[in-house]
């Protein structure tokens, strides 16, 4: 059975480690914050200038001066710090952020990612995505395995304009967890009840399946 978006986030949360500084993109990645294990100290970076992002504010406590990179009202946690956009991307560029989670339209078997532009459609801009993928040492993509037309989003090569090249290390979709290796995608885990055959059929890029593929544990 395919994972829900919440379950994808929950699975990604298992990659967190104590002391990690993490940047979560808009969409499914944002949900990862809800599954940080109790007692684990994970600090969320918001690239508009905050370390130590907390949950949404209670009704009536929204502060227009306190938003995240998705322009949502948020709160801070004890030990937070504000800074300007140059310092924010400086820490991203210098590899100080331990884990970056973002969405994608396509990922290639080389680890290239496309997630900012669809030819013929209004271009909204790349925001901070190109900076993140160009510098982060540890990037997990959270996305659906196929697009709304049912076509695989894990491709031999991206067809859409690239956001970055050879940068994605791991992908979590509603049916699988995969690494991106020097030799294409490698299947690590499958969603409970989802067959290896289904994953193979929905993966257009080169996919390695070695031995027994375990079901994801939550």
């Amino acid at each position, binding site marked *: 059975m395919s994972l829900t978006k919440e379950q994808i986030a929950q699975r990604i949360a298992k990659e967190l480690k104590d002391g990690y500084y993490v940047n979560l993109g808009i969409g499914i990645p944002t949900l990862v914050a809800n599954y940080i294990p109790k007692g684990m100290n994970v600090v969320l970076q*918001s690239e508009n200038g905050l370390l130590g992002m907390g949950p949404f504010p209670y009704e009536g406590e929204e502060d*227009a001066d306190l938003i995240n990179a998705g322009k949502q009202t948020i709160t801070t946690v004890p030990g937070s710090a504000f800074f300007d956009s140059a310092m*924010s991307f400086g820490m991203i560029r210098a590899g100080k952020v331990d884990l970056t989670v973002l969405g994608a339209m396509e990922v290639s078997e080389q680890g290239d990612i496309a997630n900012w532009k669809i030819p013929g459609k209004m271009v*909204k*801009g790349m*925001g901070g995505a*190109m900076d993140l993928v160009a510098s982060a040492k540890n990037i997990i993509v959270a996305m659906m395995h196929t697009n709304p037309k049912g076509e695989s989003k894990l491709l031999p090569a991206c067809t859409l304009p690239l956001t970055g090249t050879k940068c994605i290390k791991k992908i979590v979709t509603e049916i699988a967890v995969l690494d991106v290796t020097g030799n294409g995608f490698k299947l690590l885990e499958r969603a409970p009840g989802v067959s290896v055959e289904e994953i193979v059929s929905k993966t257009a890029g080169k996919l390695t399946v070695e031995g027994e593929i375990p079901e994801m544990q939550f």
Partner: protein
Amino acid sequence: MNKTYKNAEEAVADIKDGSVLMLGGFGLCGIPENCIAALVKKGPRQLTCISNNAGVDDFGIGLMLKQKQVKKMISSYVGENAEFERQLLSGELEVDLIPQGTLAERIRAGGAGIPAVFTPAGVGTEVAEGKETRVFKDKEYLLEYAFDADFAIVKAWKGDTDGNLIYKETARNFNPLMAMAGKVTIAEVEELVAPGELDPNQVHTPGIYVHRIFQGVNYEKRIEQRTVRKNV
């Protein structure tokens, strides 16, 4: 040395057609609301605006777009604005999309007298087209040039009449960088105080960068995405 202006109208009075402006803010957070309103009223056209975003249809830079005052936007993300899309598709508006971190660094470079820096964002993408690349320690980078502007227009929380500024929370964003990079820097603040009232250890933008300052009025501080959790 009198940097204090009465209001936004006075502070932007000499901004002319064709000026290059920097406008602080991220989304609608920390934007110079008073100056934007004054620019809409005064009406200079053919402006180049360097700003991370382009506002929404009826607020922020969107108000200037609606009046067709903007010739070119230099931004990282412009997705919240239907009028923007219309003008772009019709060819009335140019847009230069720049990765957010590179945009920040190019503005900071302009404000720090650094003509160019190397950054990795966009290598291997269309952003790299036509740009000089160089490899340092096995990694490829793009040569990116500094930005400056005829006028940098920023919004701060508190300021003093010497031009020292303190920003609040994430309303800081691009504001301190742009303050450094303006040939003329105009700051609007929520609270204007006398020199000595701000702790010099806590000043984010030293007064040397600020040429004009005034206390703004009627801040709306519109929230773009009001997200809350239920009261327990």
